[in-house]
């Protein structure tokens, strides 16, 4: 099949790639643009480790056609840190030992960011709900829940009011 050009913003930079019309966004991110932040877990929308934000909305990159992202703004875990300064969620994940093998971590961080972006004061139930689509085999989830709650507490006060 003929390749089609796709252009979108990736973590704040304009990027372009040639994609097969049937290529997923995950394939284009990883193979085309060398962004290995989002992981390929199941490839069928059941594990969450490929999670990205598209125009601020949480999406599964394995189920999103790359061509449908034309002109969109895509955020992945790779763009989460501000230069050498980690995002509060990344710091909290480290402090709370919320990663073991780390395979779920990109999706967990992205799902958590989507939550805090719209709700800076989440309850435990909100956090559980936000990561319910992300499978973790190692941590038993509790350290991840604790990390997200802790990160929310470190957000600047004006964002939490």
């Amino acid at each position, binding site marked *: 099949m003929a390749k089609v050009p796709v252009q979108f913003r990736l973590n704040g930079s304009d990027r372009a790639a040639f994609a097969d019309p049937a290529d997923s966004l995950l394939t284009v991110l990883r193979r085309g643009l060398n962004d290995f932040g989002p992981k390929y877990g*199941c490839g*069928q929308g*059941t*594990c969450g480790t490929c999670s990205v934000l598209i125009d601020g909305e949480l999406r599964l990159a394995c189920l999103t056609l790359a061509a449908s992202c034309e002109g969109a703004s895509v955020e992945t875990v790779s763009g989460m840190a501000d230069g050498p300064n980690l995002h509060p969620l990344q710091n909290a994940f480290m402090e709370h*030992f919320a*990663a*073991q*093998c*780390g395979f779920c971590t990109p999706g967990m961080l992205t799902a958590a960011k989507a939550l805090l972006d719209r709700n800076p004061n989440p309850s435990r139930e909100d*956090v*559980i*709900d936000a*990561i*319910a689509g992300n*499978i973790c*085999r*190692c*941590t*038993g*989830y*509790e*350290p*991840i*829940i604790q990390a997200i709650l802790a990160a929310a507490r470190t957000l600047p006060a004006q964002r939490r009011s």
Partner: protein
Amino acid sequence: MARFRGRGMASVNYPIGMNLGGDPSQALIHSNPDGKFTVALSAIDLGQGMKQVTRQVAAETLGVPIEDVYVDTADSDTGPHDMGSFASRGTHRMGNAVIAAAREARGVLLEAAAEELEVNAADLVTDGKGNIHVKGAPSRSITVRATAQAAQFKQGKTIAGRGIFLIPLSSVDPETGEMNPNTAFAHACLVADVEVDDETGEVSVLGMSSAYELGRVINPKMVEQQLVGGAWMGISHALYETPEPYYPNPDHGPRDFNEYLMPGPGDLAPYSITILERPAPDGPFGGKGPGEMCANPVLPAIANAVYNAVGVRVNDLPITPEKILRGIRANGGAKPQARRGGAL
């Protein structure tokens, strides 16, 4: 049409590592010209903490800062041989191999420093901050970095060490069948409280409490991390996971994560852990390692709790609602057993 509470308990006497034909681990350490050390080993770290334990054990033995130790577990083709990351053997077997390698490398490091300071190596000590000095005379000192550079560029010496730890094959006594494949045992006891619905057969784990004896705890936060994650996996094995629900018939088996059930973040039970430390005489700094036993006691404790709640003894895992309902029916109704102990 009621929910019955039950409590179950299980204890574990867990052999660290297994021994099918002798159980060796090897490690190699060398210094780099910047005075930092690389430890090469083939024990793979999938998140269990092998790299961190190796780093701590190597830094402590070498007498250098932990930041100055890099662990390379990249390649089991080219790295020194190890039996693998299984049977909770990593900390114990590899930790000992790393100590042996670090001791040898430390010996060469002190020899090289002695040559530079024109003293006897036996009179030298490390301060753990990157310096080597004469015992009782801290001013007569040299940095590890300067020593590494002198060794490499002046003395023509490699600051390196080889380590192996072997639990030899224990042969079976033909008379008694006895053998002794293990040298270190870890221990745990876990209590689980559950609630069983006699109409749906569903089990919810209300809470768990455990005590683990793991030898010297080399990294307390990572031990806690493993115990928490492993207990979740134990609940998952006990109540949810099966690749072949009608074994050996593969029909109706799960095909993906929609059908292969595992508890999610909304199905967690409060869990309190107490860690006890009885250093193992042959462990690295007394360490044994948590490993698989994080999950082990959860399964029998939950099975016992289900029996305690409704009188149904499920003998094959997972303990599904269907098996519980069939058991309740066969018994002519839920048969709650005597309750023991107070609040969890």
